[in-house]
């Protein structure tokens, strides 16, 4: 009861003393302002990256395995990879014949090529040669038209399926079906358009691609890439490990990897992406947290400093309060509340700065929203540092001798 009215009184007094020393309070709180802005912006940015990642990762099927010449996130020396054999059709067919646990399998190979339609030209479009099963394995949907058939794929017919980016670039207002475009100077007939897939982490578009029959690719297009990528669809996500083990044993056999040697190929999956990504973001988080923690510590040292000055300046006031019956705890609380109010104010200002900045990031860099919990956390942190910064000055104030402090001028 009595504590409550004391707290109210302390808050209103803290407010008065902040207003009385506007500039000083503002300078004192600067460190906290910077710290809180940094904390909230970092969290907001990470939240934004996470969201972008989640939506990107879903474009890589969770039930898919990619058998490729290299691991996605290998960490061995380059010399280990340099002499690896390509994955060729013989291996693909052997795998296809022997793999029991998969429900589908597709080979593909691709490289960036130049596309032409009349006098329009697109460079660096990813051209993939693949088979008819590709559509089923990757679960691709058609915007219009159809995918190529097994006959077209194995016969090397000059047909192609284009991504949305190509349609938008070449045929903004017309139907692309049955039109002819040139890929690496060869003419292809468009038979289908893939549904829009979006972009990977907002960095590169997944729609900037063209699919052609794999036989055609091997005969007419030479890219830097000569090794097949085999996409295997497992029965379901739970069977992924089982399928992966089976693939490894078959691939080792067909590639003649001696017993005891390491795999000379990679079986990649979405999970790898995720764990690498998580490692990366947690590292960013740790570094970011350390830096902002430092800003907050420096900020609270500044506030502690100001509080010591304030205690010194108000020695007489402390004496008067003690003469009027203030207990040690009352004085302690008064100064703790004062530094907490200063820090909370800093936190608020920090949020006032970082919120518009987060809107700018949202508009210009990547879609992000400042989560409520970040705001709550920021205010909690400012309060915490307020209490930490205020503790020793407040303790000093509470221990002042009433006689001495009344005499202080």
């Amino acid at each position, binding site marked *: 009861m009595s504590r409550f009215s004391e707290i109210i009184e302390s808050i209103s007094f803290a407010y008065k*003393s902040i207003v009385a020393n506007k500039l000083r309070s503002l300078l004192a709180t600067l460190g906290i302002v910077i710290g809180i802005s940094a904390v909230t912006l970092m969290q907001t940015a990470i939240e934004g990256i996470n969201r972008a990642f989640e939506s990107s990762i879903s474009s890589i099927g969770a039930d898919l395995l990619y058998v490729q010449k290299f691991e996605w996130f290998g960490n061995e020396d380059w010399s280990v990879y340099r002499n690896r054999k390509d994955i060729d059709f013989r291996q693909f067919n052997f795998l296809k014949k022997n793999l029991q646990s998969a429900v589908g399998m597709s080979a593909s190979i691709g490289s960036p090529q130049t596309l032409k339609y009349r006098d329009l030209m697109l460079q660096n479009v990813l051209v993939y040669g693949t088979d008819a099963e590709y559509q089923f394995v990757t679960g691709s949907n058609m915007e219009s038209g159809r995918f190529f058939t097994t006959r077209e794929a194995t016969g090397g017919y000059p047909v192609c399926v284009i991504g949305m980016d190509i349609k938008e670039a070449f045929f903004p207002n017309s139907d692309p079906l049955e039109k002819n475009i040139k890929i690496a100077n060869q003419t292809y007939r468009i038979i289908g358009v893939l549904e829009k897939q979006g972009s990977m982490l907002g960095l590169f578009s997944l729609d900037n691609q063209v699919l052609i029959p794999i036989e055609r690719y091997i005969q007419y297009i030479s890219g830097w890439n000569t090794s097949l990528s085999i996409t295997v669809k497992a029965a379901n996500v739970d069977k992924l490990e089982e399928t992966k083990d089976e693939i490894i044993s078959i691939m080792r056999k067909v590639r003649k990897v001696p017993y005891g040697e390491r795999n000379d190929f990679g079986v990649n999956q979405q999970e790898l992406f995720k764990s690498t990504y998580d490692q990366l973001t947690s590292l960013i988080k740790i570094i970011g947290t350390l830096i902002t923690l430092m800003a907050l510590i420096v900020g609270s040292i500044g506030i502690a400093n100001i509080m010591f000055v304030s205690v010194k300046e108000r020695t007489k006031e402390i004496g008067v309060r003690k003469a*009027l019956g*203030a207990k040690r705890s009352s004085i302690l609380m008064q100064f703790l509340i004062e530094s907490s109010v200063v820090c909370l104010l800093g936190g608020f200002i920090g949020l006032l700065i970082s919120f518009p900045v987060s809107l700018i990031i949202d508009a210009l860099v990547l879609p992000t929203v400042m989560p409520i919990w970040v705001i709550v956390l920021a205010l909690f942190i400012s309060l915490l540092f307020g209490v930490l910064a205020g503790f020793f000055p407040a303790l000093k104030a509470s221990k002042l001798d009433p006689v001495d402090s009344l005499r202080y001028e």
Partner: protein
Amino acid sequence: MSSLIELKDIVKLYIMGAEQLYALNGVSLGIDRNEYVAIMGPSGSGKSTLMNIIGCLDTPTSGEYLLNGRNVSEMEDDELADIRNKEIGFVFQTFNLLPRINALYNVELPLIYSGIPKSKRIEMAEQALVSVGLADRMLHKPNELSGGQRQRVAIARALVNNPSIILADEPTGNLDTKTGDEIMMLLSDLHEKGNTIILVTHEEDIANHADRIIKIRDGVIDEDCASVKSVKSSTGTSE
């Protein structure tokens, strides 16, 4: 029946390096309820130390201090704070009002520390300010008030918790003669209303407003006698 204040052989020893200084060296005295006492002495006599001990701002090195029958000399800081809050009203030479808050809020302060709810607090503080004649100055800040008015606010603050003792330390020291006289009249009024007043001063004129004068010299009581005023007129009315 015991006195309101009973000091028994109070000693206050300050040790400054190798030197020992007896600020008080065996002071014993009793003050009854509704007495008007002046403590006099030159500076360095120990009268301030005596006032601090009576006001529970300080504790004696040895000796016993009974206030209202309670032994104050062995209390902890927080207990002393409570005693100061409820039993003692201070009036200082330099007023010691808090500068950033208005008169009413200044008077409310002791009530905040005794945990009285806001509405009651305001009512009591207003009453105290009215009783010192500042009904129209309640919302002024100290720097908007004259010296005399500030001291009245301080007196209202001292009164507001109905303390057993009002302890006035050179209450007219920072005021001109006329204003000082007004303040002394106010204190006399309070005395007549039943308050116990202890006045600390070095001025003979001021001390003579009290009924009894205790003179301190070199840490001991030099003289404890009735004042000129109370000898002249036993009724104790003000001039």
